C-alpha cells in the first residue's frame, strides 16, 4: 500500500481554500510526488465550510482515504468537520491570534502559528494561507523551494514583487515552526523523486481531449460542475481556430452545437443536472437528423436542484433512455481522469463515424479531483481522427439519385449514410426531426419509415461489431469475488484491493466504461461466486441493467450521501457484502 501523507486546508468559502490547496498540490507534483485531491463542500454542520484535501505518495494514488495527517484550519468548523479523520498523530496548524479559541483534542498536536501577522510582515495579510503552507513544509520536512515553483506559476502573471512576497511568507511560516516547535517525533517526511508529473482534473482532461480530437465549436450554459469544461476551452480553442459560445440556456446550447455539427465542425456541449433535462428535447433530433454530436453530462446529485456541488451517478437511465420515442445513441462513461481525455477523443470519432449522438457521462468527483500523471499518459501522437463517411465534391456523385438529389440518409448495409457538409457541390439536402426518406424529406410511408428506423439502429449494430466495447480489469482475474463498477469509482476500487488483500480477500474488479453498447458480462458473472455492483446512486441503475442482461441477481453497494467512495470505506463494505445474502 502506498506510503501516503494526507493533508488538507479548510475554512469558509471565500478564504482562498481552493487556490491554497492547488498551490500545495502543484508543489508536491513538482517534487515528483503523486497527488490525488478532493474538495469538501460537504458540511456535516451548516454553512460555508469548504476544504481542499490532498493525498500524496511517491506511488500512484487514486482515491481519498478516511485519514488526515496535517490540517490547516482557518476556522474551528474545519477541525470539527474532520474529527473522524484526524488521529492521535495529526498536526493542526491554526492562528491563535485570531478571534476564535481553537478547541483541539489533546492527543493531537496543535501548531499555533501567527499566520496573519507573519503574512503582514511579508507584505500583506492576504498571504496568511501561504504562511500556513510554509509551516506545513516544516512539519513534513518538505523543501520550500518546491513551493516557490508553484508560487511562480500561480502568481507569475501578477509581477515579481507579488511572487517574492509570497515566497517570503512561506519562509516566515517555515521558520516560525522551526524555531518554536520540535515536531520530528510525529515522523512525517516527504520523499521526492525526479519524475515530472502533470496535474489536472477530469473536466480539463475532457476539454483537452476535445481540442485534440478536433472539436472546434462548443456551445454551453454555465452549470456546476460542467462549467469548467467551457472555461477550459475558452481562451484555448481559439488558438486552433475554434470558438466557445455561451448560449441563453441549454435548449439553445445543444441546438447551437447541432448547428455547428451540421455545418461540418466537430462540436460539443456539456452540462449537468437540470441542464441535461432541457437538452433532452433535442436528443431525438440529433439522432434522426443523423448529426454527429458529443453531449457531455458531468453528473451531480439530483433530482431537481438536488445537491448541486455533490457527487452522484444518477443519470445513467437518463443517458440511456432520455427523450421520447426510440433514440439510438452511444453512452460512454470514462472511469478515470486519463480516460476522460481518451474517451472524449473516442466520442468524437464514434459520433462522426456513425452520425449518432454520443453521451459522455462523467461525474462531479472526477470533475473536481486533480490528479498527477506522467505527461505520456496524454500522448498526442496516439490521437487518431476518423471522420467517417464525409464525402467531398468528387465523391458526392456516387450518392445522387436519378434526379441528382443527394441521398443524405441513404439506406446502406452498415446503416451509415454519406455525409455532405455545406459548401460541398451538389450535396445540398435537408435533414429533419420528421421521419424522412433517403433525401431527408418528410414521409409517412410505412416501408420508408421502417427502413429509416432500421438503418439508424443498424449503425449501432455495426458499431457493436466494429468498435471496442471492452471493460477494464483489475485485481485477481481468477478470484471468486467479482466487483463491477462504472465511472469514477474505479480508482477507489483499485486501492480497496490492497486493503482487501491484507485481509486475505481476493477480488476481481471489472470497471465498465461503455454503458451502451456495453460488454457482455455473462461469462464473468457465471464464473464468480459473488457479484457486487458498486455505484453512487440509491437505486442501482447499473446493477439493474446487469441483472437484466444476465438474468441473475447481484449484490449492490450504493452510496448517495453526495460524497464519493473512499478506498478504505469501500473495502469494508465489500467485506460486509461478501458475507451477506444475495437478494431474492
Amino acid at each position, binding site marked *: 500500500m502506498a506510503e501516503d501523507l494526507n493533508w488538507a486546508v479548510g475554512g469558509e468559502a471565500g478564504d482562498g481554500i481552493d487556490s491554497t490547496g492547488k498551490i500545495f498540490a502543484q508543489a508536491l507534483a513538482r517534487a515528483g510526488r503523486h497527488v490525488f485531491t478532493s474538495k469538501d463542500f460537504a458540511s456535516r454542520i451548516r454553512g460555508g465550510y469548504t476544504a481542499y484535501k490532498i493525498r500524496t505518495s511517491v506511488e500512484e494514488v487514486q482515491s481519498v482515504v478516511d485519514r488526515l495527517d496535517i490540517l490547516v484550519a482557518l476556522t474551528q468548523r474545519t477541525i470539527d468537520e474532520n474529527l473522524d479523520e484526524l488521529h492521535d498523530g495529526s498536526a493542526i496548524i491554526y492562528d491563535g491570534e485570531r478571534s476564535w479559541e481553537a478547541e483541539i483534542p489533546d492527543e493531537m498536536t496543535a501548531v499555533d502559528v501567527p499566520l496573519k501577522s507573519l503574512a503582514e510582515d511579508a507584505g500583506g495579510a492576504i498571504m496568511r494561507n501561504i504562511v500556513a503552507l510554509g509551516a506545513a513544509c516544516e512539519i513534513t520536512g518538505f523543501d520550500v523551494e518546491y513551493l516557490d515553483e508553484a508560487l511562480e506559476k500561480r502568481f507569475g502573471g501578477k509581477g515579481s514583487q507579488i511572487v517574492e512576497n509570497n515566497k517570503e511568507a512561506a519562509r516566515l511560516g517555515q521558520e516560525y515552526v522551526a524555531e518554536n516547535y520540535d515536531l520530528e517525533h510525529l515522523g512525517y517526511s516527504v520523499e521526492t523523486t525526479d519524475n515530472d508529473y502533470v496535474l489536472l482534473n477530469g473536466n480539463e482532461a475532457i476539454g483537452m481531449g476535445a481540442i485534440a480530437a478536433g472539436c472546434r465549436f462548443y456551445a454551453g450554459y454555465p452549470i456546476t460542475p460542467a462549467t469548467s469544461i467551457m472555461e477550459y476551452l475558452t481562451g484555448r480553442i481559439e488558438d486552433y481556430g475554434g470558438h466557445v459560445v455561451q448560449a441563453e440556456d441549454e435548449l439553445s446550447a445543444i441546438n*447551437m452545437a447541432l448547428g455547428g455539427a451540421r455545418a461540418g465542425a466537430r462540436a460539443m456541449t456539456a452540462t449537468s443536472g437540470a441542464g441535461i433535462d432541457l437538452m433532452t428535447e433535442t436528443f431525438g433530433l440529433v439522432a434522426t437528423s443523423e448529426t454527429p454530436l458529443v453531449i457531455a453530462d458531468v453528473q451531480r446529485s439530483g433530482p431537481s436542484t438536488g445537491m448541486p456541488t455533490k457527487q452522484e451517478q444518477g443519470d445513467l437511465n437518463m443517458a440511456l433512455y432520455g427523450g421520447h420515442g426510440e433514440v439510438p445513441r452511444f453512452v460512454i462513461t470514462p472511469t478515470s481522469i486519463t480516460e476522460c481525455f481518451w474517451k472524449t477523443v473516442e466520442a468524437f470519432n464514434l459520433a462522426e463515424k456513425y452520425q449518432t449522438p454520443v453521451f459522455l457521462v462523467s461525474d462531479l468527483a472526477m470533475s473536481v479531483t486533480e490528479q498527477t500523471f506522467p505527461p505520456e499518459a496524454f500522448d498526442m*501522437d496516439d490521437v487518431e481522427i476518423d471522420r467517417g463517411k464525409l464525402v467531398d465534391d468528387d465523391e458526392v456523385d456516387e450518392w445522387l439519385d436519378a434526379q441528382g438529389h443527394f441521398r443524405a440518409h441513404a439506406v446502406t448495409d452498415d446503416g451509415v449514410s454519406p455525409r455532405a457538409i455545406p459548401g460541398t457541390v451538389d450535396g445540398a439536402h435537408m435533414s429533419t426531426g420528421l421521419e424522412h426518406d433517403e433525401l431527408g424529406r418528410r414521409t409517412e410511408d410505412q416501408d420508408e419509415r421502417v427502413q429509416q428506423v432500421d438503418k439508424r439502429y443498424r449503425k449501432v449494430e455495426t458499431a457493436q461489431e466494429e468498435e471496442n466495447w471492452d471493460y477494464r480489469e483489475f485485481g485477481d482475474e481468477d478470484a471468486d469475488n467479482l466487483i463491477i463498477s462504472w465511472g469514477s469509482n474505479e480508482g477507489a476500487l483499485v486501492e480497496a484491493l490492497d486493503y482487501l488483500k491484507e485481509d486475505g480477500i481476493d477480488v476481481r474488479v471489472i470497471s465498465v466504461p461503455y454503458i451502451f453498447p456495453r460488454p457482455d458480462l455473462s461469462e464473468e458473472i457465471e464464473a464468480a461466486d459473488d457479484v457486487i455492483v458498486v455505484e453512487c446512486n440509491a437505486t442501482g441503475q447499473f446493477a439493474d441493467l446487469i441483472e437484466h442482461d444476465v438474468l441473475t441477481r447481484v449484490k449492490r453497494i450504493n452510496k448517495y450521501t453526495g460524497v464519493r467512495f473512499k478506498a478504505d470505506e469501500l473495502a469494508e463494505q465489500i467485506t460486509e457484502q461478501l458475507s451477506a445474502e444475495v437478494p431474492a
Partner: protein
Amino acid sequence: MSSDVRFTDFKSDKQPTWCPGCGDFGTMNGMMKALAETGNDPDNTFVVAGIGCSGKIGTYMHSYALHGVHGRALPVGTGVKMARPDIEVMVAGGDGDGYSIGAGHFVHAVRRNVDMSYVVMDNRIYGLTKGQASPTSRSDFETSTTPEGPKQPPVNPLALALASGASFIAQSFASDALRHQEIIQEAIEHDGFGFVNVFSPCVTFNDVDTYDYFRDNLVDLQDEGHDPNDYEAAKEVILDSDKEYQGVMYQDENSVPYHEKHGVTEDMSEIPDGAPDDAMDLVREFY
C-alpha cells in the same frame, strides 16, 4: 458562387401542401429570389426552418437545410454560422415558433448580431395546429382555445427586437412581391442579424388579418421618407400601434457582426488528421 444561379434553383421538386392562397407561398418566393439575387447558390446556403406550416419551407426549398425542434431554429442557425462564416444562413419560422416557444432565443439572437437573416412568417395564428391564438394574435381574436380572445395585448416583435439591441429591423407583406423580396434582400446583405417580420396571411384560420386587411392598412415607409438610420424615427414607427408598416424600420450603419467582434472567421470543418501539431503544449501547461 456562380452568377447564373436562378431563384428556381432554390426550389425543391416537392409540391407545397400549403392551403391554396396561403401567404407562405409569396413569403417563400421572395426568400428564394432574394437569395439568388444576392449571389448565393443552394450548395453554399443553409436554411433553418422552424416547426409550423411556415417551417415546411425546409422541404419546399432546395439548399442545405435543417428542420428541427419547435422554437429552436435560431440557435441552430447561430451554430451553423459560427462554424462556417463562409456559408449564407437564413432562418425562417412562424410567429409561434419565434415569439412564443422561441422568444428567449429571439432576444439573444438579436443581441448576438450573428450575420444571418431571420424571416418570421407572421400569420398571427397557429396554423399547423389548426387555429389557436399566437403571441401576435389580437387580444379579442376568438379561437378554439381562446373563445373570447386571448385578452392580452399582442407581442410587438419589432419593439422586442429594438429593445434587445437589434441592428436591422424590417417588416414586409408576402403579397407585395417586389417590396417583400427587396426587403429580404436588404436583410441578407446587412452586416449582422437581419430580422424581417413578414405578414403572411393564413387564409384558413385567420379571418381578421387577411390580405384585404393588410392591403387596406399597409403604409410603406419608403413612401413616407423614413430614414432607417434614424433611431428615434425608427422607435416612433415601431411603437406606433395604429398602423401596419412595411419597409426597413431600422438599420444600424455601424453594425459589427458577431464574427468580427469575436474573431470567428475560420472554417471549423477543416481539422488535421490527428491532434494539432503543438497539442503537447496543452499537456505541458499542467506541469
